[in-house]
């Protein structure tokens, strides 16, 4: 009997020991320190600090095939292309079920006429057995990194004309309507105030545009909403009715005061032009229309400064830091600060809204 009791006790002890893995002492210490750090009175600052998660960007280089544009625009706003490339081969019917589920259940921004093209693409990259290029298994960090998007010749379709609201009252109503749509469809990436800081912003590369940092012409917004941004997670919104597209355009323009904050002196403009032609022209073009000799292969495409007028400070920031996830490089080692300022002034002078 005594043996049984002793046996029971030692078994119990073993069980307890087991259940307190990974080591009760270790565990209690961790609990204490955690509780302590959560109490500001202890003065332990380091662990009470804001916790941040810097997400890596590992976008895939998706193969060229018909329907790629439609796929990229409808799908990769919410998830990376790996959601597709990890799937086994499916029939067109199965892909259609999935695409329709994405649209009906999750609100993917695609309309009926795009569905077939998206399925074409999903089918094509499976049917060929041609998986998108990706780095093979490796423990080497350098092997895994963001691959630049493949550039495609862009067959831009024209957006429908969006009539401008007549009187002031109509215009205000239009802007209000735009605010509602913006909150529903845009704020997740661009943020409530259009600053490019929505909930999904940290996950995306290139980052969603800061819509407060530039003036966007109606023409630019119209085309962008209609076609999306090639090589970026900005989808096409052509499934929205034209009056909603117009409202969005008006609302986005309301982020930015229309008054021009002065023009640069002629002298400075000449200096800026010289630097621009040396450094910026190959991509952004001699007139600033974003169609320089090197532009055709770039995605996202170089900015068209005739349709976008970025703020002075914003241009300087971009020249200093580049735009991660795009082909826009860092210029701070090539252009002095004074040159960068002159270039910024010159770029702003190129704005010619066609309206």
């Amino acid at each position: 009997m005594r043996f049984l009791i002793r046996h029971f006790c030692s078994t119990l002890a073993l069980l307890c020991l087991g259940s307190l893995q990974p080591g009760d002492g270790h565990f209690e210490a961790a609990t204490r320190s955690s509780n302590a750090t959560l109490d500001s009175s202890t003065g332990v600052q380091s662990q009470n600090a804001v916790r941040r998660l810097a997400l890596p960007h590992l976008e895939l280089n998706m193969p060229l095939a018909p329907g790629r544009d439609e796929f990229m625009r409808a799908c990769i706003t919410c998830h990376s292309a790996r959601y597709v490339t990890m799937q086994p081969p499916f029939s067109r019917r199965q892909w259609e079920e999935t695409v329709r589920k994405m649209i009906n259940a999750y609100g993917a921004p695609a309309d009926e006429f795009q569905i077939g093209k998206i399925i074409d693409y999903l089918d094509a990259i499976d049917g060929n057995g041609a998986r998108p290029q990706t780095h093979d298994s490796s423990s080497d960090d350098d092997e895994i990194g963001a691959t630049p998007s493949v550039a495609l010749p862009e067959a831009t379709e024209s957006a429908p004309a969006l009539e401008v609201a007549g009187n002031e009252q109509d215009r205000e109503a239009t802007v209000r309507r735009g605010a509602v749509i913006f909150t529903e469809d845009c704020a997740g990436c661009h943020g409530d105030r259009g600053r490019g800081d929505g909930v999904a912003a940290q996950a995306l590369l290139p980052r969603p545009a800061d819509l407060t940092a530039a003036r966007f012409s109606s023409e630019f917004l119209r085309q962008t909403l209609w076609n999306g941004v090639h090589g970026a997670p900005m989808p096409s919104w052509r499934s929205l009715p034209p009056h909603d597209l117009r409202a969005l355009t008006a609302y986005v323009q309301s982020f930015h005061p229309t008054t021009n904050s002065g023009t640069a002196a002629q002298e400075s403009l000449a200096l800026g032009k010289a630097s621009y032609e040396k450094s910026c022209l190959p991509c952004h073009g001699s007139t600033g229309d974003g169609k320089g000799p090197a532009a055709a292969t770039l995605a996202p495409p170089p900015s068209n400064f005739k349709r976008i007028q970025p703020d002075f400070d914003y241009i300087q920031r971009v020249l200093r830091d580049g735009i991660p996830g795009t082909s826009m490089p860092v210029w701070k080692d090539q252009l002095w600060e004074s040159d960068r300022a002159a270039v910024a002034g010159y770029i702003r002078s190129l704005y010619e809204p066609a309206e």
Partner: protein
Amino acid sequence: MTSQTQLASRLLNRRMFVRLFGAAGAGALISPLLTRASPNSGAPKEQLVGFPEKTHLILRTDRPPQLETPLNYFREDFTPNEAFYVRWHLEGIPTSIDPGVFQLQIGGHVERPASLSIHDLCTQFEPFSINAVNQCSGNSRSFFQPRVPGGQWRNGAMGNARWTGVRLRDILDRCGVKASAVEISFEGLDRAPLNATPRFAKALGIDHARDGEVMVAYQMNGADLPMLNGFPLRLVVPGWYATYWVKALHEITVLPEKFHGFWMDKAYRIPNTPNANEDPEHLATDTVPINRLSLRSLFVRPEPGEQLTRGTPFEIQGLAFDSGYGIQRVEVSINDGVNWQLAQLDPELGKYSWRRWRLPWLPETSGRYRLRVRAFNRAGHQQTTGLWNRSGFMRNVIEQTEMEVT
């Protein structure tokens, strides 16, 4: 129409077979039996990736992240936090949290709605710990035949941890749940970029929520939760699939009626049939929300491709778990199911933890072996030989693995 579908499905199966095993793979098979997916054999090279606070995990998707735990980490009873798998649904996952400001909101059908800081939870409630397996509903989905869409996990969308925090019952008691409460819904901080995408919210029945085991965890294996596993708070629903274990838990709402939301009414549903099984050609029309974990047993060693030497003792080893009834026995076959041997069981680490099993073995003849493992629990449940459903949930087919003795 039906014959067309069947033809398509047959063609598809052929395509999939070729894709899965290839010509070389087919030649290496020891018998044609392996047209059924064999979870632990022929493992493809996986891409490993390092995310913040995480060791190198298998990359399933990058945005939002789905990262799988490599098999070798299951040699430990408690899965290290840095190796614990990751699965988010919505792209806008929390990337910045100030634990000094964060508040857990409890409201709805209660007498006293509350807003609790992490500090409140740590200091004003009795700490509670439980060891429990957290397993994704779709763990092992890639082994379903015919294949189904979704995260193509192998067996690593699971982990075992010691969860520490506060009993949900204690929190609810503080708020005074009204007598007519029916369900409780849970929401995290994750958001979709599009407003049209339903917010991620799950619900539990009031009795389940107050069973004294469902808890709000602020620690995992004695440390803060990694951001990717739900820092600062995670709902822990022992014995239930991980879809209920809401990460970055932020809002608890007591409801006087049944909760209705996409993630309960449309997603994460299983056929209302024994073992959630259905026929690909005749999908079940009656479905219910996924709930308790199925009984499973898995191989940890040998790993796929592991080579053994004749005459050298080897310990075949693995894990078994269920939804809390407890593992009664585990049987292993080293000759493809002809004979079964009783495995040794390690001590229990709690009814919701997994339990390690071991079988010492001295390989006497060289050649290829196909191993199988099956578990039995105290409720008399057994594992199945075949399971399929459209979502690839709850896989608990008797596992097999192959190894070579030289």
